[in-house]
């Protein structure tokens, strides 16, 4: 019936929106879980941090209107906005900042990104509107760390219940969650900043790609910020009711290789694998053309990115020659594929065929996420896996020896150590580029492509993010034309 009402030419602009999300969040507390869906509902809408990501990835002030850094780089003083209150009416003060960060850093913390707070020694409230963060060592990237969804400010009153009824300071407040179906949020009339233009937003969870297509076509959903079926994007885009918006994400899609295990501990074998892969065919076949080839683990839209795709150009003959040189004989590798139907399942099947063409046999093992996490990620029991690393600026994972693909070379760790301590932008760029080169030249993994943000939306919707510098559906500036 509502659909019938909408079909009547609207006299007034619409002030509600139905956003399609592929995954339902398990719960709604961004400080207690890694699921991207938690931030896709709550980030910038319900919860805010001291800083935030802007649509272009820039770090913007949020609850902190400004901050000072001491000479020695060890003390950050955040000046907070006045007149901010949580959705339950409790006023927001520097004590809430201290509470939130201390809770995230605590021994029994269940924060999925506890590492973000690692440089912090202590947090104190100098007065109601001034929070002082003291560091263990100079760390230039703190405002970036604090912009993450995992670093949002929660009230001590409601921290325990945020999982099911989230209370933040954002421009929208939580209304209702119908588990398995949808979450509804509405405009917060007491918001401290620029109020939202939408009155109400519904997030609807549709994990089946063909159901997503049908939901768009039937106008049950107004937009999919990350549309799960690139194959039908062109059809929707051609429909005058909708427009596709292709942007960038922080998702580096890689064919990860277990560097600990023979024969992948041999750099020649790893290099051979990278030359066997035809990135263009992969992007075309799995993603229907959406995606940018990468030659290292770094986002191509980042200013410090170096194009190193030439190091691992598609060259099956070279690949066969390298395998010969390595002298490993015929090899069969297990290829673990997590659930995403596009890059992982379709991509995995294509990669298997491409590897077969140079004489490497694979055994495809499809896995659910929980199994992938246990066996591949924690257990490190795998040869190859296709995975998209969606965290922004995560090249440092190559420095961790106990990480699942197991690199952690000393020269790479040295670069990371220097990077953490340097504040000079030029030096930082140099170091980031050195890091990119190191992992490309050592063929740690096969770097495939950067995931594109494939959004589909009603033509009359304005103000949605085109790119995805972090996983979020920021609705603050969204309106209907």
């Amino acid at each position, binding site marked *: *019936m*509502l*659909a019938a009402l909408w079909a009547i030419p609207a006299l007034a602009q619409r002030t509600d929106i139905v956003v399609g999300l592929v995954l*339902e969040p*398990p*719960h709604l507390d961004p400080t*207690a*879980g*890694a*699921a991207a869906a938690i931030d896709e509902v709550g980030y910038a809408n319900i919860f805010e941090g001291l800083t935030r990501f802007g649509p272009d990835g820039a770090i913007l002030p949020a609850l902190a209107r400004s901050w000072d850094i001491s000479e020695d780089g060890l003390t950050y003083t955040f000046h907070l906005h006045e007149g901010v209150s949580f959705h339950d009416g409790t006023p927001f003060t520097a004590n809430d900042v201290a509470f939130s960060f201390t809770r995230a850093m605590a*021994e*029994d*913390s*269940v*924060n*999925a*990104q*506890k*590492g973000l707070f690692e440089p912090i020694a202590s947090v104190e409230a100098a007065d109601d509107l001034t929070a002082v963060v003291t560091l263990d060592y100079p760390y230039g990237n703190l405002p970036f760390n604090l912009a993450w969804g995992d670093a949002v400010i929660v009230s001590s009153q409601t921290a325990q219940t945020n*999982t*099911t009824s989230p209370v933040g300071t954002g421009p929208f407040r939580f209304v209702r969650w*119908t*588990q*398995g*179906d*949808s979450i509804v949020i509405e405009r917060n009339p007491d918001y401290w900043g620029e109020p939202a233009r939408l009155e109400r937003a519904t997030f*609807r*969870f*549709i*994990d*089946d790609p*063909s*159901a997503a*297509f*049908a*939901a768009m*076509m*039937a*106008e*049950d959903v107004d937009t999919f910020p990350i549309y799960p079926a690139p194959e039908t994007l062109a059809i929707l885009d051609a429909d005058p009711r909708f427009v596709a918006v292709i942007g960038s994400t922080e998702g580096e899609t890689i064919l990860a290789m277990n560097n600990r295990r023979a024969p992948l501990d041999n750099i020649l074998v790893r290099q051979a694998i990278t030359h066997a892969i035809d990135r263009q065919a992969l992007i075309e076949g799995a993603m229907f053309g959406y995606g940018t080839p990468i030659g290292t683990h770094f986002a191509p839209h980042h200013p410090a990115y170096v194009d190193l795709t030439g190091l691992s150009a598609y060259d099956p003959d070279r690949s066969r020659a390298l395998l010969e040189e390595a002298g490993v004989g015929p090899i069969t590798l297990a290829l673990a594929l997590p*659930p995403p139907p596009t890059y992982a399942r379709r991509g995995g099947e294509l990669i298997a065929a491409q590897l077969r063409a140079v004489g490497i046999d694979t055994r495809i093992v499809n896995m*659910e*996420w*929980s*199994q992938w*996490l*246990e*066996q591949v*990620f*924690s257990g490190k029991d795998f040869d190859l896996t296709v995975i998209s*690393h969606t*965290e922004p600026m995560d090249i440092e994972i190559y420095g961790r020896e106990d990480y699942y693909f197991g690199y952690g070379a000393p020269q790479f760790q040295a670069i990371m150590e220097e990077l953490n301590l340097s504040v000079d932008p030029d030096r930082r760029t140099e170091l980031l580029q050195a890091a990119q080169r190191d992992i490309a030249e050592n063929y740690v993994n096969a770097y495939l492509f950067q995931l594109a943000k494939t959004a589909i939306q009603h033509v009359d919707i304005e103000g949605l993010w085109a790119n995805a510098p972090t996983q979020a559906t920021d609705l603050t500036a969204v309106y209907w034309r």
Partner: protein
Amino acid sequence: MAVFVLKRLASLLASLLFASLAIFLVLEVLPGDPAAFMLGLNAAPDTVAALREQLGLTAPLPQRYFGWLAGMTVGDFGISYTYRVPVSDLIGARVQVSVPLAAYALTLSTLIAIPVGAIAASARNTPLDAGIMGMTQLGVALPNFWFAMLLVLVFSVGLRWFSAGGFPGWDDPFAAMRALTLPAVALALPQAAILARVMRSSLLDTLDQEYMRTARAKGLSQGQALRRHALRNALIPVLTIMGLQFSFLLAGAIIIENVFFLPGLGRLVFQAISARDLVVVRSVVMLLVFAVVTVNFLVDFTYALVDPRLRRPVS
């Protein structure tokens, strides 16, 4: 009679107890850790350990089993690991979709099957009968998920008569029924084909019975005899099949619920298995087993009331 009921009741309890143990143990060997699943790629091992502790995953096995059993007897199924709400709340919400959907599908299937089966029986050995039987053969062979896919393509994407899926809730019963219509049709048609065949054969059986011949001899036409006498007697096997189908529809709608993204019990259990939300999985599976076992018990009981010969253990 009392002995029969007591014996069957004891066997029912033993079955449930055995089922609960089987479910619990099977889920214990399931690989995958709910805590690791929730914390993702960047979590440190001690953070995962802290969450395991918080979720109560570190208690010894027997303690968790008996805790679960004791809780269930008072309707407390525990707290979902992932959603962090009581499992009984989750089930309560999902039952509001699954039970009406199963009932809707069963009603549709019955409304189609009984007249179709009766027509085929009364027109036996004519081209009409053969045509109907051919159609039902096709219906039985139809994979319901494929049929659902075609329904969505025609009625949601093409004609836009129905939404492609989702469930608006029961605040607006009209909208709710509308949302359940395509899924119910997708579920009902293959079931209706089976039911129509049962209806036809069971009618043909009764038509040959002694009292039917008497009725015909008394001057009733074939049609009158069919309506007055045969239909009622023929419905007994039909009802048995319907009982079976209802429990099948309750749990068997998983794939259909996925196609139409309906928040039903099947999808709950499917997602809970992927997320290793074992508290939810075991309780929903147990509930479904309980429903089927109880329905079987009631059916046996009713039969025993009607036909004392069936009270002996061998049927």
